[in-house]
C-alpha cells in the first residue's frame, strides 16, 4: 500500500520533470524573438481593434509602429494625439500632431427637404438598397437611410434621427475611425478636421446632378451655382460636377459662403450664437456683420489650427 503511494509519487514527479525539460527545450528552440516594445506600445493603445488606423487591430499597429522608421504615416484616430505621444515616447520618435477629425454626414435630405417618390420594401440595408436602385427619393446621390453606418460604428457615435431619416454624429463619441465612411455605399460620410472648438463649415450635399434636377429632388441640394467659390477669400471652395466642396485645410471659417448659398446647402456648425441685433431690419444685412464679427475670432483660432497642423 505504502509502496504504491511512493511509486505513484515518484513516477508522476519523473514524468513532470521530463515534460518540464521538453517544454524548456521547446521554449528555447522555437522562441519567437519579439521586440518587447510591441507589448508596451499595445498597452497604451485604446484596444478598440477598430481598424481605423488601417491595420488589422491594435496589436498589428503596435507591431508596425515598432518596425517603422518614423511615425509620420501612422496615426491612431481613436487615441488621437495623446496616444501617439505615448507611442512616440516609448519608441523614441518624434510625432507630428494631427488635427482631430470627426465624421460628417454630407446630406441634408430630410423628409421635409427631399420628398419621397417611392416606397422601399426590401431588406433594410443601405448596401442592398443602393445596389438595387438610387433610393426612395428623386436624389440618386444622398443618404438612403437604412443605417449601415450606425451598425458599423463601434463607439455608439451614430444614430438615426427618426424625424429627418438621416444619421446623426455624436461628436463627443466619434473617434474618426472611418468605419462609417467605409460602410456607406453612397460616400455621404466624410472625415473632416474637427476644427477649433469644433467649429466647421462644410457642404452638406453630394448631389452631382445639374442644378435644376438636384433642386427638384431636394430643396437643400447643392446646385453647383459657384457663388460660394466666388465669395470665398481663401480659395478653399471648388465646384466640380455641379457640386461644391470645401477644403477643410484651407477654410478659415469666415462663413461668407454660408450666407451666400441660395439653397442653404453649406452648413456652419458649433459656432457661438451671436446675440440678435435689434437694429438690423432684414436678415441679409444681419448676416453680414455676423460674418465680419466672426472673422477675427476665426483668425485667432487659425493660428492655433496651423500650429496643430504642423
Amino acid at each position, binding site marked *: 500500500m505504502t509502496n504504491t503511494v511512493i511509486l505513484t509519487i515518484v513516477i508522476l514527479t519523473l514524468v513532470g520533470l521530463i515534460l518540464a525539460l521538453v517544454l524548456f527545450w521547446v521554449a528555447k528552440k522555437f522562441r519567437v524573438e519579439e521586440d518587447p516594445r510591441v507589448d508596451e506600445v499595445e498597452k497604451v493603445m485604446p484596444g478598440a481593434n477598430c481598424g481605423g488606423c488601417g491595420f488589422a487591430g491594435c496589436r498589428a499597429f503596435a507591431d508596425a509602429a515598432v518596425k517603422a522608421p518614423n511615425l509620420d504615416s501612422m496615426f491612431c484616430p481613436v487615441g488621437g494625439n495623446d496616444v501617439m505621444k505615448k507611442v512616440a515616447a516609448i519608441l523614441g520618435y518624434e510625432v507630428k500632431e494631427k488635427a482631430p477629425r470627426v465624421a460628417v454626414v454630407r446630406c441634408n435630405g430630410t423628409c421635409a427637404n427631399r420628398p419621397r417618390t417611392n416606397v422601399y420594401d426590401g431588406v433594410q440595408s443601405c448596401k*442592398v438598397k443602393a*445596389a438595387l436602385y438610387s433610393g426612395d427619393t428623386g436624389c440618386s446621390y444622398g443618404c438612403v437611410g437604412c443605417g449601415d453606418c450606425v451598425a458599423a460604428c463601434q463607439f455608439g457615435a451614430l444614430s438615426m434621427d427618426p424625424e429627418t431619416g438621416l444619421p446623426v454624429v455624436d461628436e463627443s463619441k466619434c473617434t474618426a475611425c472611418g468605419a462609417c465612411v467605409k460602410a456607406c455605399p453612397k460616400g455621404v460620410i466624410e472625415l473632416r478636421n474637427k476644427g477649433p472648438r469644433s467649429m466647421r463649415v462644410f457642404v452638406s450635399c453630394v448631389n452631382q*446632378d445639374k442644378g435644376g434636377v438636384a433642386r427638384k429632388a431636394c430643396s437643400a441640394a447643392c446646385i453647383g451655382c459657384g457663388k460660394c467659390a466666388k465669395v470665398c477669400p481663401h480659395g478653399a471652395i471648388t465646384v466640380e460636377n455641379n457640386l461644391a466642396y470645401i477644403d477643410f485645410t484651407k477654410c478659415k471659417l469666415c462663413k461668407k459662403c454660408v450666407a451666400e448659398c441660395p439653397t442653404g446647402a453649406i452648413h456652419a456648425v458649433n459656432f457661438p450664437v451671436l446675440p440678435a441685433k435689434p437694429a438690423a431690419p432684414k436678415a441679409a444685412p444681419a448676416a453680414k456683420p455676423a460674418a465680419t464679427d466672426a472673422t477675427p475670432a476665426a483668425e485667432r483660432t487659425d493660428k492655433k489650427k496651423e500650429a496643430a497642423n504642423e
Partner: protein
Amino acid sequence: MSKITFRIGGVHPDDNKISRNCAIETLPLPPTVYVSVSQHIGAPAKPVVAAGDKVKAGQVIAEPGGFVSAFVHSPVSGTVKGIVSRKDLAGRPVPHIEIAVEGDEWAEGIDLSDTLVTEIPSDKAVILEKIKAGGVVGLGGATFPTHVKLNPAPGKVADCLIINGAECEPWLTSDFRIMVERPDEIVVGAALMQKVLGCRCVIGVEENKPEAVEALKASVAKLGYPDIQVLSLRKRYPQGGEKQLIDAVLHRQVRSGCLPIDAGAVVQNVATALAVYEAVQKNRPLVTNTLTVTGDCLPVERQHNYLFRIGTPLSFIMEQAGGVPEGAAKIISGGPMMGKAVSNVDAATVKGSSSILYLTEAATKRNPQSNCIRCGKCSDACPMGLEPFLLNRLYKAGDADGLEKNAVQDCIECGCCLYSCPAYIPLLDNIRQAKGQVMGIIRARAAAAKAAAEAVK
C-alpha cells in the same frame, strides 16, 4: 405532359400569361427618344453624333466601346438634341443620346418590306459582320452582344445551338407573340446562327405555349432547313436560364465557373433570332423590340403587346396604354421573378426591355421575415444546386472565403430561394450582395495573376 426539363431545383409560379391573345401592335412614335449608350453588357458605346446632327432611323449613332460592346443605332429619324445625362430605370445617371423625332425616314439599304428572305449567305463571316453591324444583343435579359457569343474562343466548339423560347417568367408574352406571329423569321434567324456555328439547332418552347410550338414546327417543315428541331419542354421556372435550358435539352451541366460553350452549347433567345434575321436578311439594325404591358390590376382589354422603338420613354408607353391603372402599387420592368422595380417612369426603354408589369400591393408586399428553421426548401428550389440559407448566413458573418467555397458566384439570381422560403427571409437580396463581393475578389485575383505573369515576361 412533356418530360423534358432541367434536373435540379426550380419552382412553379402561376404563369398568368393573360396578355397571350393580344396581337402585337405598333406603338406610335414618341416626340423625343432617349437612346442609352449602355444597353448591353460590357463597355458602354461611344457616341459618334453631336448636337444638331440630322439622323435617319437605322443610322449608327454610337460605336462599340470595347471588344464586348455593341453598335447603337438611331431608332427614329430626326435631330440630335445632344448627349444628356438621364436617369435609368433604377434612377442612376447614364449618358443618353436625345433625338427629337421628325417624320419617319429610314437610312438607305434597309429593307422594310415583309417579304421573307430565306436564302442564307454562304460565308459565315458575312453573317457575323452583319450581326455586329446591326447592334444585335441577347434579348433574353442579359443583353450580351450576340456576335461575341457566336464567335467562340479558339479551341471551343459548339455542337448545338439552342433557341430559347421558354419564356418561363410569368406574365410576359412578348416572346410568345413573336413566335406565333413571326415564326418563319425566327426559324430563318436560327438557321443563320446555325450556319455561323456549324452545328445542329434545337428550339425549346415551354408546353404552356402550344400555339408557338405548332407555329414553329410548321415553319421548320415549310422552310426545310436541315437539323432544326422544335422541342416542347415542361413548364418550370427558370427554364429560360441558359444553364437550365442546356440541361433540359442536352442533359449536360455547365460546370462551375465555365461558360455554356464549354458544354458545347450556345443559347440565343427567340427575340434575338428575330433580330438576327432582320439584321442579316433585311439590313435592319436592332432598333425595335416587343414589350408586354400587363399586370394583375389591369383588365384584359387594356393589356398589350407593343412593337416599340428603342429609346421610347416608359412614361410614353404607359400613357399610350391608358396610364397607370388603379390599384397598381409596383411597376416592374421585366418579369416578376427577375425584373426590376421601376423607380423612375421617365426612364427610356433599352434593347432588353421586355415588359411593363403593374402589380397590386397584395401581390408584391413583402411579408415580415421570421427565423430560418432549416427546412431546406431553398436548397430544393435552387436550380444551381446551391444552399441559399447557408450563403445567407455566410454573408451575414462576412465570410468571403466560405462564400466562394460554397459557389455563391454561380448564383443566377433567379429568385427561386426567395420565392420558396416559408420564413420570407430576403435570401436573394443578401446573396446578390455576396455574389458581387466574391466576384470582385475573383476579378481582383485574376487581374493580379495577370499582372504577375506579365511582370515575369
